[in-house]
């Protein structure tokens, strides 16, 4: 298929996934922010939301230091700001632009989800939303990505187009999970003081919530929330669809499908497989021992390398 078509499908999925992740981050921040200070401690959740979204520099330039970040500013910046290229509004905008460019490669159901979401988005005002409106907005965003994934899964031909779309989604998803861990890794470290205090519980729970895994956690571990188990679930557990291991499981498979369809493989297949092997061969104890932060930083950088390899090999 045309490289640009593959590129559009890949980025279309990435942006839908990114919008979904942003919505979750805002959701969780809102929840933590409303938890009484005695439970939530003094950390500024809104600041760390910006950090997780990966647009700290642009935010501080406009609104001042992250420690003083205000709810109103963060919500409008991450959700609507036209000047923030990674705001939810812009994610939808870019997703639709990509979708329009590859109308012919999408099923009508997929196009319909993106196009209706884009039309619907105009119904949300640009001003700051009431809390009610915000919840409705976040629900709408999450629902859109669910519908899009569903439409993709149910209607798209299982060929290179599908595999590129899914690779984009998985790559974005693993990046988001890793970024959440990167910002919050310190609350998972054992040497932290007053381990087990209420503050930590809410922080851990919020990490799980941001990847919709709080319920899953209990089903998997049948235990109370413990930091190394949180890390295990998000990094190594393949049952958990947003874990790094699960993402790479699908990524490697999708890339292999492309390689076998084209009858030749290249750097992206090798890179994905080696990362999957690394995630399979390590235990969470190993990772903590070698340094959780180092592990995550390295993962983020390797994940970016894989993105670059896919682009180089197929999308240009």
């Amino acid at each position, binding site marked *: 298929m045309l490289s*640009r078509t593959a590129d559009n499908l890949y980025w279309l999925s990435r942006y839908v996934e990114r919008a979904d992740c942003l919505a979750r981050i805002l959701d969780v921040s809102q929840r933590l922010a409303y938890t009484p200070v005695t439970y939530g401690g003094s950390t500024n959740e809104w600041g760390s939301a910006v950090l997780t979204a990966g647009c700290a520099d642009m935010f501080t330039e406009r609104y001042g230091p992250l420690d003083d970040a205000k709810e109103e500013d963060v919500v409008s910046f991450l959700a609507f700001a036209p000047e923030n290229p990674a705001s939810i509004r812009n994610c939808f905008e870019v997703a639709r632009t990509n979708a329009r460019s590859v109308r*012919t490669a999408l099923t009508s159901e997929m196009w319909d989800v993106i196009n*209706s979401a884009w039309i619907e988005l105009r119904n949300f005002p640009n001003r700051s939303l009431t809390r009610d409106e915000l919840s409705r907005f976040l629900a709408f965003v999450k629902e859109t990505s669910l519908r899009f994934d569903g439409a993709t899964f149910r209607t798209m031909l299982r060929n290179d187009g599908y595999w590129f779309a899914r690779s984009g989604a998985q790559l974005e998803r693993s990046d988001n999970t890793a970024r959440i861990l990167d910002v919050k890794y310190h609350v998972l470290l054992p040497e932290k003081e007053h381990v087990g205090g209420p503050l930590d519980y809410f922080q851990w729970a919020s990490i799980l919530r941001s990847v919709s895994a709080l319920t899953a956690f209990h089903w998997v571990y049948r235990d109370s929330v413990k930091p190394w188990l949180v890390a295990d679930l998000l990094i190594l557990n393949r049952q958990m669809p947003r874990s790094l291991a699960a993402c790479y499981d699908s990524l490697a498979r999708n890339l292999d499908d492309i390689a076998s369809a084209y009858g030749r493989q290249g750097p992206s297949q090798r890179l994905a497989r080696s990362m999957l092997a690394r995630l399979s061969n390590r235990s969470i104890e190993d990772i903590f021992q070698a340094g959780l932060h180092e592990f995550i930083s390295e993962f983020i950088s390797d994940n970016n390398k894989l993105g670059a390899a896919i682009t180089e090999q197929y999308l240009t």
Partner: protein
Amino acid sequence: MRQAFDEMSSIDGQVRPAYETLQHWLSSVPQDVLAHRRQEAEYIFRRIGITFAVYGEQNAQERLIPFDIVPRIITKDEWSRLSKGLEQRVKALNHYIRDVYTKREVLRAGVVPEDLVYKNPAFRPEMNGQRVPHDLYVHIAGIDIVRTDPDTFYVLEDNARTPSGVSYMLENREIMLRLFPELFSMHKVAPVENYADDLLATLRSLSPNGGHEPNVAILTPGIYNSAYYEHSFLADKLGVDLVEGRDLFVKDCTVYMRTTEGPKRVDVIYRRLDDDFLDPLAFRPDSVLGVPGLMSAYRAGNVTLTNAVGTGVADDKAVYSYMPEIIRFYLGEEPLLPNVPTWRCREADHLKYVLEHLPDLVVKEVHGSGGYGMLVGPAADKMQIEKFREKLIADPDNFIAQPTLALSTCPTLVEKGIAPRHVDLRPFILSGSDKVRIVPGGLTRVAMKEGSLVVNSSQGGGTKDTWVLDA
């Protein structure tokens, strides 16, 4: 102005036979049902995203063209006359363009003045002596037709560059089939859906190299182009790749597209990009929409561009006025479809007449399109006429004038119910190396405003489904 001929109820109110069933049906269906169906149609159009952009309007970046649910009916006999005339016209256009870029006999014979070719901005010196496969230049033509009475169809304009609108012809039919199946059971309507197939066959027949399966691609300026929907629609229907300039590159005078499996050779490019932007090495150096080196591949005969480069030399309004002579010159036949009488303001006696009769005439820019920059005398006030007079005197070469025709009307659903509105027709003519193909019908454009003669979509015109009856 005379009272307009209505295609359903004629001038005397007598319903014409082709419309009898439709007229009966229209009068039996309650207004609110019709209004409801129209809303449904609009909803479908918006959902599938059939929109177009209006240049110069910031907010209306994507707009719907109004769709009128009352079909326009053409009889089998009328169509067979029309299609013969269209085929003749396109044949002559192809002869003329080839001649202009090779032997220039038409200039030597004095049929067309030299400067109409050499000074024409749409003339491409770069095409001089260029061989094109099968000597065909205009593979896809849109000829605009108007009607003034039961027997007379005029050619209003030739579109030999990249005529658009065919997606509306096809989508309008789909929607009508969905909304009014009962109407189709009452009429024998010739199908149009084979257009995509015909187009693909035409394009493939133009491949410069035998020996391998021709790879056809549609070249679009991108999603911000006003006709982008049509480009993607056609790519979809044809099952070919929709490419932008950046998807293509030229190597060793051969065009390739970048695919996930490496470079793939392209043989035929149905380009929906203007000449000026095709190749920054040959035309506008600042074009980022085109393909650097494309013209070198074209000159080497390794790729076919449809339509060919430089076909615009045949379709401006000044050349239009010579079309009857051009047809006689190349084909030795009388034109089957007449031109609208046209005064060329470049000629002194014509200019004099035009200046004396401005309030009765339509004056158009030679290179204008989309209904811009024209004066509709009878609809203009004194001020507008005087302002236009100055423009005309300053640069007479740039204008032609025509009488205001009493364009035919068709019944149309408007706020107050069914009322007559003026229409024109754009059929699409495909010329391949094997034969000429015309699907029965075309795009009917309708001026939604009462009394208006301007059918252009950029000026509030709408469209209708066009039915050619098979019996």
